[in-house]
């Protein structure tokens, strides 16, 4: 277990400050670890996935005896040491050939993990096309209704978004939209329990393309894609989902970041902005209205009325 370090100089103090929990978090760091035995496919996959993430990702080159589904401690240690919350562990065995485990951490503990097997793989180097400049934010396209219905797919979608989204930005330069990651899910769930993928015959197609924007005669350009790689065909194996309560805490938005509700202002059906004013209780008898002499309460003098009518005729 890591011992808490007391900062002895300003440099370590700054590093510790960077690592402590904040309201708006830093970009997540990812570590790519090799298991006790790996294959060439797995090694290439790890390095390619690491490249896609250019900054904030550490590729371990040595092999480690790590079994994520059995033992959490070594994984917790690596993540704590490198201040990372995303990990990919690659391994190869007869039972599980070309295996990748994608996972996330929350608060120093494993939040969720998904194990995939690589059926087909084509590395970035094999596809001889120009690559985009790294460090750009990618576009995402998720195809297939399984990403809305199946829990495995939903978790995988969330994980992929988390892995490759890059820095959270308020605005983006349109010319910086250089590549798109497309994940397609096929197949159907044969078992009634959607969380059990063992009877699942579907595949996941992982593709990355560079975007070329061409003239279209209008303001919005025409999009053409060019293969960039890496290309994978995944199949789900084991999974470990997050506990409900933990996930709830992890996705909690702090009050400061929540969009502020404006009270008493709304939009009516036509589309006009309408505001509501709360007026207190009013005693209609004592209201101050416009003074009209004619409506004043007259005394029981009939002469007055005659004068009045004469006055009126004159005016």
């Amino acid at each position, binding site marked *: 277990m890591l011992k808490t370090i007391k900062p002895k100089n300003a440099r370590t103090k700054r590093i510790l400050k960077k690592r*402590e*929990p*904040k*309201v708006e*978090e830093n970009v*997540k760091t990812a570590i790519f670890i090799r298991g006790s035995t790996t294959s060439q496919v797995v090694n290439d996959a790890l390095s390619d996935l690491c490249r896609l993430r250019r900054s904030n990702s550490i590729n371990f080159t040595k092999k480690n005896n790590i079994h994520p589904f059995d033992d959490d401690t070594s994984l917790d240690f690596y993540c704590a040491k490198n201040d990372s*919350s995303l990990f990919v562990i690659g391994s190869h065995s007869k039972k599980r050939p070309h295996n990748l485990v994608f996972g*996330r*951490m*929350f*608060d120093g503990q494993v939040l969720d993990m998904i194990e995939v097997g690589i059926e087909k793989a084509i590395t970035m180097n094999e596809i001889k096309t120009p690559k985009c400049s790294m460090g750009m*934010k*990618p*576009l*995402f*396209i*998720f*195809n*297939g*209704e399984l*990403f*809305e219905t199946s829990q495995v797919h939903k978790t995988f979608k*969330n994980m992929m*978004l*988390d892995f490759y*989204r890059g820095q*959270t930005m*308020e*605005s*983006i*330069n*349109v*010319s910086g*939209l250089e590549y*798109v990651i*497309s994940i*397609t899910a*096929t197949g159907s769930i044969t078992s009634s329990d959607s969380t059990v993928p063992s009877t699942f015959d579907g595949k996941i*197609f992982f*593709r990355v*393309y560079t*975007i070329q*924007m061409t*003239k*279209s*005669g*209008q303001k*919005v*350009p*025409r*999009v053409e*894609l060019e*293969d960039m790689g890496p*290309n994978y065909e995944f199949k789900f194996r084991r999974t470990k989902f997050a506990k409900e309560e933990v*996930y709830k*805490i*992890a*996705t*909690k938005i*702090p009050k400061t970041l929540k969009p502020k509700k404006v009270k008493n202002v709304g939009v009516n059906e036509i589309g006009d902005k309408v505001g509501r004013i709360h007026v207190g209780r009013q005693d209609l008898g004592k209201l101050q209205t416009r003074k009209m002499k004619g409506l004043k309460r007259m005394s029981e003098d009939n002469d007055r009325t005659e004068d009045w009518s004469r006055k009126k005729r004159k005016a």
Partner: protein
Amino acid sequence: MDVSAQLEAQKSKYKSINVEKQVPLQFDLGLLAGFDVNALEENKLKVETDNYLKSYTRDGTQLLINEIFRLPLTSVQDVGVVAELPKIVTAIPREKPLPKPKPPTRWERFAKLKGIKKNKKSRLIYDERRGEWVPRWGYKGTNDDGANEWLNEARHRRNIEEVEIDASQQLNSAQPQLKSKVNAKVLKKTELRRQITMAKTSTASLGKFDKPVKGEPSNTKGAKRKFESNLGDIQKEKEARLSILNKIIDKKGEILNVRKAIAKNNQQN
């Protein structure tokens, strides 16, 4: 004039940006993501996987780009067209829990009690003389004490003449009131010579390789003390010591020449 034909020709030159989909896509523009729930053609996937996936993704990406161009766009200098992204819709878990509010420090509690507020001084300050906002300190700031001005009022200084008189008086008062034959000129000369020697040897090589000035005495060093060897002749040593003693005691009671001592003391002070 009917330009519709020409417009059609123009449009047909370019490929369409419209995409037909059975179910419209869902978007999360904060993450630049698009979610397509339409069914894929299974046989096409099996037979020509890559091409089908490419064209299918191209359609989805086109829709996503269309959606991005519907966001408020601004033209920023040197950068290009920038689109303002909305907030992220999908709930992505954090990596660390929310920070707990720290208890106020001892100073913070005191300040709150007394109502002390921090007044941050701004970097720029309005300089009325120059008539513009200048930095309070630093380069081209108002803090430079008039060092760069061509004309400054003499604020803290007295008259030049007074200053000169002062200086000469100080010099005179620093020197001793000499009654003896030693005069000020000679003292100043020795003092100066001493200072010159000090300055000469205060270089990195202790003045060894300096070019000698014409007329300057080269050997300014004093004589080095010579000591007798520790393992010398005992007899000689004994004689030397006894002669000193005899010199002192032989004077028949007058060990100290008082007159000479006073004169020497006065000279030294």
